[in-house]
């Protein structure tokens, strides 16, 4: 079985995986990082979004072996100890969730979307979250949270 070496949330990780193992399965099953969710498994819903070398990607549509040598950040890697990331804090403040299943992917997509864009517009946020589906909220509070998070990240 191929061996993959990657950095996950700042820690060096090594794992033996089948070639067909998806990145999301490596994270959830080998590394027990279950904050990254599998919603649709067909690259539509965005519940599995993580950052690979700083860019948001759908971890259900990437092989673990493709991430060899990469730096991966999951939702577990965002907070600084007990201090939430400003985007997580913004989701809490704005009640940007209901059931919470899509939330890890929403937050990871949002962090990548608004990086260096504190003045991103509501329209840009809505377009930027096209790849993330929420079946509860109707998106309104998510969008408000992302706008607030963008401002907080710019401070």
């Amino acid at each position: 079985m191929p061996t993959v070496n990657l950095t996950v949330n700042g820690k060096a990780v090594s794992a033996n995986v089948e070639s067909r193992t998806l990145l999301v399965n490596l994270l959830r099953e080998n590394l027990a990082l279950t904050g990254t969710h599998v919603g649709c498994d067909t690259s539509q819903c965005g519940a599995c979004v993580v950052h690979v070398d700083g860019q948001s990607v759908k971890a259900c549509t990437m092989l673990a072996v493709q991430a060899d040598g990469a730096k991966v950040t999951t939702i577990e890697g965002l907070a600084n100890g007990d201090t939430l990331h400003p985007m997580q804090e913004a989701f809490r403040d704005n009640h940007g969730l209901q059931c919470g299943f899509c939330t890890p992917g929403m937050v990871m997509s949002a962090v990548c979307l608004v990086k260096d864009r504190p003045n991103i517009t509501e329209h840009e946020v809505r377009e930027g979250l096209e790849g993330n589906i929420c079946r509860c909220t109707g998106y309104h509070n998510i969008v408000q949270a992302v706008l607030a998070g963008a401002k907080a990240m710019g401070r």
Partner: protein
Amino acid sequence: MYNFEYQKASSAADAAAKIKAAGEDGKLMAGGMTLIPTLKQRLAQPSALVDLGGAKDLAGIKVEGNAVVIGAMTTHAAVAASKDVQGKIKALAGLAANIGDRQVRHRGTIGGSIANNDPAADYPAAVLALGATIVTNQRKIAADDFFKGMFETALQPGEIITAVSFPVPEKAGYVKFPNPASRYAVVGVFVAKTGGGVRVGVTGAGNSGVFRAHKMEEALSKDFSAKAIEGMHPPADAMNADIHASAEYRAHLVGVMAKRAIAAAG
């Protein structure tokens, strides 16, 4: 997903050697945005996957004379953000910016899209309308000779797209009617005005994949305005039909999208 042997190529030449060694059941992988879902559904069963993701010589954008040359492994996000593409062929940057969603655009590549030739993909319309040249590790192929029907291209086994060269047009516009779930084009029309006349590439609509709308091209070469193609659309019996749109609806949409593309071209 069936298992396979995975190999990461470090360059185009390395990929060519690896895919040759893999034999007829080997498969090249670019961004994997179509291939991985296909493998998950067990619609393909390659014995070996040769990943082009590590081939740095295949990525990048440069302006060469009167052409924008985009490396095959350049992502949609990189094309959309490129100042060179925005400056020389704004419609192409706009097309790339509206493929799939942000996450797909971070992984999906121009070479993968064109090699796959999905009948509803965006890039084939631009390649055809701009009269681009597909550069492979073996030869150069004109756009008109490249697309051979749904999911079929002129590529031979083991042949690898290395770049796509787009001549800079005088004006160009692309507008699509996206499927709201997948963002694939139900119908997409790319219109390009060049010194050699007007070319119109249509994706999503045809029942044998991307095609040129020759009658529209003739009308637009005389008068580059939406009025010149008023009421024109391709015959419905050449259109695709599925749960999203009937052949008649697609034929109608080609005319509507073409007029909007001309307006977008300015």
